[in-house]
Structures are given as C-alpha cells and as structure tokens.
C-alpha cells in the first residue's frame, strides 16, 4: 500500500460511519463511495495478508492495476478452512468464529481484531429487513422507558440457537446475542431468550414464552436455524399443538440441512411454520450469511412486501454473480457463482467467493444453492459427497 493510503483506523472509521448513517439516505446507493473504500481496503489487505497477495499476483492483479472493485480477486470460502486469512498481527486477535462441523472435520475460521464493524452491520441489517417498522430505532435516541402497569406489547425475541456463552465460536450465536442486547437496550423488544441448550431445543420453555406473548397479544420474532425450526415443528406436531401467534409475528431462519438426517425445502418449511405457528410465508425471512462474512443478506418480504422475494444486503456489502468458466460477471438473469464483497471484513479479506449459485433479481438476488437439482450424469462419486465437507452454513 502506498504511504499516502488510509490507515486501518481510517478504513474502519469510514465503514462504521456508513453503517451508522440513517437508512435510506442517498449514500446507500453511492457506488463511488463503495468503490473508493473497497479499493483502499484491498490495498491494505494485499499489503498485510501475504497468502492473499500471492493469490492475487498469480492472477495478475495488484492494487495499482485495478479500475474497479469488481476486479478484486475473491478468495474461495473453503480457503478459510486451510489458512488464517488475517490482515493484522495474530496477537491482536480478539475473536475467532468457526464454521459448523464435527470434531473430525476441518472448520473454517474468521479471525477478528475488532467486533465493532460486525456488530454495527448486524444490527442495521436485521432491523431494516426483519423489523422494518422499527427502523427509527437506528436513529440516535435514548432508550425507551419500560411500560409499567399494563400489558407489555413489545415484540418478543425468541432464538432457536445456543447462547453465545454456550457457543462462543459461533458467529450466529454472537449475532443473536448482539441483537438481543442492542434491541433490549433500546427498549424495542422484551422477553428475549435463547431456546436451544445442550444441543436441544427447550420446547417447553419456548412454548411458555409463546403463551406469554399470546396472553399479552405481543408479536413474536422467532429466529434460528432452519434445522432448529424443523425440530420445533416436529415437537409441536407430536403434541398436536397449533398456535396462531399474534399479528405482527415473524420468523427469521438461516442455514440449511446439509448433512442432516432429514431435509425440507424452504417452501415446505414455511408451510409447516404457517400450519403450526400461524406465521404466513410472507412474514418468513431467510437470512443468507456465512461465518466468513461480517454482513448478512435477508429476504425482502418484510421490507418491501408484495414484491418478488429476493435477497438484499446493506450498502457496504455487494454481490457479483460470476461465470465459473470465465470469472466474468454473468449477463442479467443468468446463473452465476455468488461472490460477496463485504467492507465489514476489514480484518480478513473483503472479497469471498461462496460455494453457492445465484441469479440477479432487480437490485437483489436469489440463492439457488450448490446443486440446482441436476441429476448426476455419471456413476462416479463426486468425492465431496463422501467426504461430507461442511463448509456451508454457520454453527
């Protein structure tokens, strides 16, 4: 990086400033701003993350030679399993998140020297896409007073994932802990709790919390992994329980079923959620996130109801859909590999090539998954089926 380039503190400050701006301002669509920060950040990371610099050089790309952020090489997500992609001294590490997997499997790791950007990104994205009617809380304001002497009708946040204390290396648990802390501090939500412990969903505790919400007519924000939802739905079915959660209730689920004994399509999952919990599909939001990224993408259904479901991200995280054959952007409407450029990843690398395929829809995109249902043409075993690698998803 040139001596005149911004320092890491300046880069972090520039991204944090963007994350803390009120949503909906013109800066959200400021491509020049994204391009400027992305190129400065690339130069910083190229200088300090030696394997990444070698990877880029092998492709003939250096910070001085690019004309746009789109030319920044994306690191395959699987590389986070094999090497430490840090752009800071190892001793400065304050947190390491790990991808899901068994003890025998190699797990991907994201090393962080600050949690500030991760947490700021999480809060704004979640509020805008899951609680859009409460977007006002993102404005600087004092906490709201707690209601007293009358039913507490604030939304309840129930989380189908282990707590951050129980799963300290889980980015998902950390995300939910940040949301619970920040939203409770702002007086936005009440009765926040984690309903997975010891690897099991505490169905009785969850049901008691849902019954309290029903008694108070308070909407429920039910969040968690898709697999945990399936467990809850199975438990409700075995007890023959059907609930109609109060109006305004919603669901946010994330992750998939890879490696699990049972799989459901997303449509089937949402159908079961509607049947057992009374939350219709148009109030169910899928979050697309990865341990290797600071920022997440969410379905548009609550933010832009009545429009086609698509994934939307914050303005500091952008997506390219790339041809696997040429590495170039695919034409609009064509399927490509999803590469995420996340300015929140200041401490590692900002460009991550995911293992997923996607297609652009308007200003967003849809995720088609790794296998779009094509029948195998041969009888040879693609060894990854046998190796059961689990680079997708987060714990």
């Amino acid at each position, binding site marked *: 990086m040139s001596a005149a380039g911004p320092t890491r503190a300046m880069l972090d400050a520039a991204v944090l400033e963007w994350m803390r701006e009120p949503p909906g301002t013109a800066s959200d669509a400021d491509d020049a701003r994204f391009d400027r920060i992305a190129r400065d950040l690339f130069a910083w990371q190229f200088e300090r993350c030696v*394997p*990444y*610099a*070698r*990877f880029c050089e*092998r492709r003939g790309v250096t910070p001085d030679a690019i004309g746009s952020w789109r030319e920044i090489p994306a*690191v*395959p997500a*699987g*590389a986070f399993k*094999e*090497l430490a992609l840090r752009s800071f001294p190892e001793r400065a590490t304050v947190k390491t998140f790990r991808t899901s997997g068994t003890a025998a499997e190699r797990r991907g790791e994201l090393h962080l020297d600050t949690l500030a950007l991760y947490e700021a990104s999480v809060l704004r994205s979640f509020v805008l896409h899951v609680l859009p009617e409460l977007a006002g809380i993102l404005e600087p304001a004092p906490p709201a007073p707690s209601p007293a002497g009358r039913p507490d009708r604030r939304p309840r946040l129930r989380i189908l994932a282990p707590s951050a204390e129980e799963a300290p290396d889980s980015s998902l648990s950390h995300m939910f802990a940040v949301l619970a802390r920040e939203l409770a501090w702002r007086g936005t939500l009440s009765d926040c709790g984690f309903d997975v412990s010891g690897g099991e969903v505490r169905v009785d505790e969850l049901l008691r919390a849902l019954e309290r919400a029903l008694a108070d007519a308070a909407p429920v924000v039910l969040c968690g992994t898709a697999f945990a939802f399936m467990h809850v739905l199975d438990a409700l079915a075995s007890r023959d329980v059907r609930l109609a959660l109060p109006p305004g209730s919603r669901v946010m689920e994330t992750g998939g079923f890879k490696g699990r004994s049972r799989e459901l399509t997303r449509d089937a999952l949402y159908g079961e959620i509607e049947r057992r919990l009374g939350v219709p599909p148009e109030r169910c939001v899928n979050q697309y996130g990865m341990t290797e990224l600071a920022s997440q993408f969410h379905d548009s259904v609550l933010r832009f109801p009545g429009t086609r479901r698509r994934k939307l991200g914050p303005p500091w995280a952008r997506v390219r859909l790339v041809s*696997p*054959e*040429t*590495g170039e952007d695919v034409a609009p409407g064509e*399927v*490509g*590999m999803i590469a995420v450029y996340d300015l929140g990843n200041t401490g590692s690398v900002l460009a991550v*090539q995911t*293992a997923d*395929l996607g297609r652009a829809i308007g200003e967003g995109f849809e995720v088609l998954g*790794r*296998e*779009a249902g*094509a*029948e*195998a*043409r*041969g*009888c*040879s*075993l*693609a*060894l*990854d*089926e*046998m*190796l059961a*690698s689990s680079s997708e998803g987060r714990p």
Partner: protein
Amino acid sequence: MTGVASNRTSAGEVRGALARLRAAGAALRARPASATLDSLARLLDTWRDPESKARRSLDSALPEATGFTLEVVRAGLSHALDGTGGSDGSGWSGAALRALVTHELGGLDALEGRGMPRALGPEVTSVLLAGALPTPTLQSILAPLVLRSPVLARTSSSDPVTARVVAASLAEADPLLGNCLEVVSFPTGDGAAMDAFLAADCVVATGSDETVARVAERVRPPRQLVAHGHRVSVAAIGPEALRGPGRADVCNRLAFDVALWDQLGCLSPVSVWAVTTESGLVDRLAEDLARALAETQTRLPRGRVPIEAAAARARERAEAEMRAADGRHVLVYGGGAGDAWCVVREDDAAIRPAPLHRFVRVHPVPDSDALADALRPLGTRSHLAAVALEGFGPDATRVEAGLLALGASRTCRPGSMQSPPLDWRRDGRGVLTPFLAPARASGA
C-alpha cells in the same frame, strides 16, 4: 411389440407394460435358452461394429442428449465394446457373453436346467437406469434377459436414448426377445408411476448411496433388489514408471482414461498417487499429465459442463491456488478460462473432493503402505471401484493384493480403465448371479 412408450409414462401405462412383460416372459421361458443367448450374443457382436445401425443411432442422438461430444461417444463405445484397450482384448462380444454364462452359471446347461437346477431370473425385472453412460445401461438390460427375465427399463433424464436403441436392436434381431423389453420414462417425483415400476419381482437400481437407500426402503423381500452404488476409481504409479520416457506414455494413457466419458464414469480415475519419496518426480508426473490432457482435448473434446459442476471445478481450483499461495508445495495446471482440464499437484496424500469433468489431482505418497492408508477411507465405505497400477516392478503383486483387500473390484494398467471385461464384478458381485433366486445364487 417393442415397447417404446411415450415421453412421459403414466402409472397405468407402467402397470400395463409390466403385465405385457409377464406374458412375454412366459413365451420366452417356453423356448430353449440357447435361442435367447444366441440372440443376445449376436446383438453384442452387432454393436461392436461402429457402422451398425445401433451405433449410428447412438452417434446421432447421444451427444445432444447426454452432453458428451461425438468423439467421446464413439471412442468410449469402441473402447468398451471392441476391447481395443481391454486387459484381455476381448471386449463385450458374443463370445464374452457365452464365457460369462459359463463362468458364473456353469454354462448353457444351467440355463436349460440340464443336470442341474435351472438358472432362471425373476418373472420381471425393473431396471432404474441412471446417468448418461451407455455401457452400464446396455449391461443392466442384457443381464436379466440372459436369465430370461423380461426387463422394464426406466430411462434416466441424462440419457433417454440408449435403452430405446437397445429395444430397437432387440426387436429387429429377435421379435420374441424384443417383446421382453419395455422402456418407460417418468419423473422421479411421480410417486404413482414409481410405485408401479417398483412392483416388479426384481429391481435394479444404480445411484448415490442416498438414492439406493430410498429404493431399498420400497423394495422389500421377497422382491429382489440389485443395487449398484456410486463408486470412484484412482491410479497409483510406482517408482519405475515415474522415471524416464515411460512416464509420458503412462500419462498419455491416464489422460485417455480421464477423458473418456469426461471422467463421469465410476471407472474414471479422479486422483493419481505417485509412489515415491522424490518430490520432483511427483511434479513431473503432474506436468506430463497436464500436457497429455491438453493434447487429448484436441482428439476427444470435453462435452457440456453443467454450471453446478463448473462452479465446483472453479472452487476446487481456487482453493488449490490458495494453498499454493500459502507456501505449500501445490501446483495448479490448467483449469482457467478456455481450459477443459485441470491438474492439481497436491502436497499430501489426503483424499480431496473430486469435481470431475477432467479435474485430476496428483498426490505424493512415499510407499505402498502409505498408499493403502490413503485409499483406506474409500475402501472402508465400499466406494472404491478400479485402481490403475503401473511401475511397481516386483512389488506389483503385493500392491495389487493390498488394493483388492481394500475393496477395489478391479486393477488394470492405465489406459484400459474404461474397458472392463464383461464379467467384471462391479460391486464385488457377479453380473448374472444377483438375478437368481437367493438359494440358487448362493449355490452358483
């Protein structure tokens, strides 16, 4: 009648086909078994001729249907049927079929029931075809017919062609036998049609472990299930073949094995282990293999690559580049824009994902014991098919025995992986014996 049904067969039509096959089977069993064996032997001999009607039909229809190039279709069929690269040179001929009957059943007398219990297959066999390779389809259909078990074949979405060409060949060669093969097509999600299809006395299923398990749940005794799981093949090159000019020749033959059927067959090598303690020899093997794959591409161009597979190849190549960038001794050849092949020289012996479509890894391993250790995960899970071996000198017998003990069902020289003999025990079982009633099969 040759039952080539409409493009989408209903459950009722499947039931109708099964009923017709039961009636046709009675007529088939009423005539001498030798007549059936003669017809099937003639069919194989006819198919060996590249100018035969059947082969010309496959040449004209398979590339579009399956995504393989015409060059690969022609070379793959010739290699398997003519036996041009086969270890015994016989290929899939009428004589090879008769030899198979002798080898597995004891000869024509067993089919006729002369002096021994009659070797007879199930009343009707349903064959759930999978994948785009025509040769497994041909064998899956012919085997039950040898035992006079009529066949209801359901085409795979990747190859709607081959089974119909077999049916047309049979009908032309032997109308009675032609009545004993019906071909149906319906989507996997059509539960009613699948239920009707799986109601046969015997079901042959090929596919992933998951697919086979799903079929097994629905085919309970006394009905028979003959399952073929997905497998993987590899190569091991010993010290004697890693040095000198012979190495280039080995790589040319390995490249041919990789290129046939675009590495999608279970006999296609996905990884090569170089057995040596000299790192430089491993590098040179990878270089030579890359050169050979590039040259082979001009003769046998690669076919279509679905975007899911292309994405997997790009991902694996990029991950290898990252390992190299991290200072590990990993070398990446090809795989960029415009390259139809990729070779990754790894720095360890550990098995890694195989994205197929001409993507080969070369691993170093110091000795044959370490080779067995590296392949053990495949053997433990019964996923190992063939191993190509060369360059082990006097140690070859011991190495081969070790690999067979791990579960490999075939060993051969590089260049002949894709031409197994007709009696290859694909999953460690015979070709014909699985269709016999259990008591007869155990005595066979």
